[in-house]
């Protein structure tokens, strides 16, 4: 018998492993976003906290942006700026995403949302490459409220 349980001899401590693995993945918190004029693009910021002891590296990030109110309307495409971004262990950094609106997106915002103070956008089809691993997120991320200039 090994420490009173023979199975412990051939299996790793799953509970301990699970807790440690959980800390490996950073926590992401939405900070805010703003419209950048005059060419009408959008900057979205997230605060990313690395809870592990080692570095965590984001290499690339791409996604599509849709209007939250008019679900089917594609507004533009976005990408991570300042990448690759390395976040040291037990620290936080701001991850910025840049959205470039398509002509149709610009027209839609200009006609439907000009002067909106509570505009929301949906980030979809997000593909993130971090630590050499490519993750296609199935979830949609709602960002807002965004103040659209009149």
């Amino acid at each position, binding site marked *: 018998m090994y420490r009173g349980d023979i199975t412990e001899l051939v299996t790793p401590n799953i509970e301990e492993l699970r807790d440690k693995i959980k800390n490996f993945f950073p926590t992401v918190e939405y900070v805010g976003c703003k419209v950048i004029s005059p060419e009408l693009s959008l900057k979205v910021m997230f605060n990313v906290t690395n809870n592990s002891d080692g570095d965590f*590296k984001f290499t690339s990030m791409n996604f599509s942006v849709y209007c939250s109110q008019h679900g089917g309307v594609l507004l533009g495409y976005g990408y991570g700026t300042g990448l690759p971004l390395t976040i040291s262990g037990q620290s936080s950094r701001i991850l910025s995403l840049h959205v470039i609106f398509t002509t149709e997106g610009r027209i839609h915002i200009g006609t439907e949302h000009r002067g909106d103070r509570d505009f929301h956008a949906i980030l979809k089809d997000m593909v993130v490459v971090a630590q050499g*691993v490519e993750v296609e997120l199935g979830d949609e991320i709602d960002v807002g409220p965004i103040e659209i200039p009149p």
Partner: protein
Amino acid sequence: MEFREVNWPGLACSISAATIVLLSVLYEAPWWRVAIGDGVGEAEISPLNYKANLAGASIEVPIIWFLNIGSKLTMTSCAVVMFLYSVTTQKSFSRQLLGFAYKKPLLLLGLFAVMLVVSTMYVETFFGVYVPLMGTSTVLFSDGGATVNVPVSTSFTWVFWLAVVTAVLAIGAKIYDWKVRE
């Protein structure tokens, strides 16, 4: 002892076996390496050493520690006994020494190869994840709505090839034994 009475492949085998043990003790030198993503996980494995971590967490399996100790003792005994045999080939007990020593590197190498093949087949059969013995593959996971592509690369290290050479030298020592006894 005459020059032609020395079993040279046996002597070389004992030196390479001792080198493998020293590399293991001093540098924890692995025979096979697997890397997941860019620092997401890695494992460095040999019959004499084991080190694995996933997402920064060390994966420890107690029985492997005991197996590693057993393998270190096996390889050390091979190095010592093969050396003694190689320089005392004409003694009455030399055949027993050779019989004891020459199978050890073959046994360790064989068990290691079988373990690797069985492990990769097990992972492929039960988890649907193809891990090559040598090379790179991309493992695809789906969880909820997310899809994850994880690059996995594996390689044999030069220490593995040294172990292969040691096993070949052990067979060579057995064959050469007929010559030194003529």
